[in-house]
């Protein structure tokens, strides 16, 4: 039963996203410009880091290639989640104007419909610049590569995308409670993405604790990247913590799913 729901959801997602992509590609030049624009805007975060490193040799004890590794992992993982689920902040608007009810009567899982709503291919821009920075970092860092370290890189990107995706879903669930407060989730999504671009040594212990044990963003890149780079783990976590990302991502995904279902069950239409 659950299997078929997932398959149905993926199919619905593909159909809706395909529709948005077709409408975007109607104006090819405009599409190319928006992807390039998106690449430039999201790439500014890295230019800010480069500006900082034009004045110093290390930040929080981390060198530029090491910070670039964190940045590349964070931007790529966040970019993937943003591409797949980033338009969820329109949910609040849909609840306000009553058009959310349309999604409820369609024979497809609501989460898939909301996720694919306003699917924006321009977000390939963020992924592109994230991958470019990640590529530079992998070449520039001084690491004795082992099989485990090589394997951790794609694991971080995928699990990171799942963790960020869970934040998007949890944020969407919150919009059932507060439709106008869609911007709150920006603090956790974009804010989390920005936070992970910098080394954990930069931040206060309480903040690091919060994004490790409460909102497990540290498992996107901080903890596994510390293993790859041979740096001490944040908070003195045990050795196996570097490999815990898949478990954390799965657990967080389940919790976000439960939050979404609770939100959906609590939904009362505007009645208009």
């Amino acid at each position: 039963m659950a299997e078929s729901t997932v398959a149905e959801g993926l199919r619905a997602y593909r159909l809706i996203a395909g529709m948005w992509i077709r409408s975007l590609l109607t104006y090819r030049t405009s599409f190319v410009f928006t992807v390039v624009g998106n690449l430039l805007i999201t790439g500014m975060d890295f230019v800010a880091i480069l500006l900082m490193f034009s004045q110093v040799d290390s930040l929080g004890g981390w060198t530029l290639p090491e910070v670039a590794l964190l940045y590349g992992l964070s931007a790529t993982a966040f970019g993937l989640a943003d591409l797949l689920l980033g338009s969820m902040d329109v949910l609040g608007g849909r609840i306000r104007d009553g058009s959310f009810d349309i999604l409820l009567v369609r024979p497809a899982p609501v989460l898939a419909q909301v996720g694919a709503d306003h699917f924006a291919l321009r977000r390939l821009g963020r992924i592109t610049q994230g991958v470019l920075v990640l590529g530079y970092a992998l070449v520039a860092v001084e690491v004795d590569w082992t099989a485990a370290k090589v394997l951790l890189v794609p694991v971080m990107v995928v699990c990171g995308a799942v963790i960020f995706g869970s934040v998007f879903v949890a944020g969407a669930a919150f919009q059932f409670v507060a439709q106008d407060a869609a911007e709150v989730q920006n603090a956790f999504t974009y804010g989390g993405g920005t936070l992970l671009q910098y080394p954990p040594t930069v931040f206060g212990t309480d903040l690091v604790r919060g994004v490790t044990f409460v909102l497990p963003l540290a498992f996107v890149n901080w903890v596994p990247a510390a293993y790859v780079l041979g740096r001490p783990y944040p908070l003195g976590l045990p050795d196996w913590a570097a490999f815990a990302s898949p478990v954390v991502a799965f657990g967080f995904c389940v919790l976000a799913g439960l939050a979404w279902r609770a939100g959906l069950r609590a939904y009362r239409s505007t009645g208009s």
Partner: protein
Amino acid sequence: MGSGRLYVAVAAGGFRRYATYRAATAAGVFTNTVFGIILVYTYLALWDERPHLGGYDQTQAVTYAWLGQALYSTLAIQGGGAEKDLMARIRTGEIAVDLYRPADLQLWWLASDLGRSIFQLLGRGVIPFTFGALFFSMALPQSVTTWVAFLVAVALAMIVSFGIRYLAALMMFWLMDDRGIAQTLMIAGIFCSGMTLPLNAFPDPFGDIVRTLPWAAQLQMPADVLMGEVSPWHAYAFQAAWALVLLALGRLLQSAATRRVVVQGG
């Protein structure tokens, strides 16, 4: 000038419109505060490595970071103020209605944007800045006159900010692509205003250039007035000069644009 009252009413309308969305304002305050915390920690790490970077000490760098968050929506640094509505009206052709009004187009939009700015300053600026002052060491002035001087610099910054965005919005008459304009505004705004790094900490010769651009009037000048890094009169002269130049250019572009509207027949 009996029309003075008209523009005050327009400004009050802009203020009220933004004051209506209380949940959105609260959400914005929360987001600005979270970003402020992240930025402050990165600045502290940076100033740990390079004390006195850009002539600031750590408390001044922290003050600058929180001021940036407090003025972010007030000065619409990434866009999203009155120019957004103006661009939409140019695209749909509703701008023709604005031209029929017995009011000056530029002053009308300036008043509306100032109303928005003042609300955002109170509604979205005060709380993050106060939060920063409570939880981090800041370099805040003791004298009331410095605070007043700072508020004057913020008011001038609002006008400069509008001047930049009004010019950008009028480009719609020729380009008809609001997304490209909005993206350009956002990149230039975030970067050249010093949202990522104080302009005095930019590496030279890049820093010399960026400190002469109009965006330097937005965050850097009020920050330096507040922290006594620049004489208020020097800051005002710089800000007022840019405000006048931008508003004059806006008028020139506006008359060229409105002639186009007439030629198109509405």
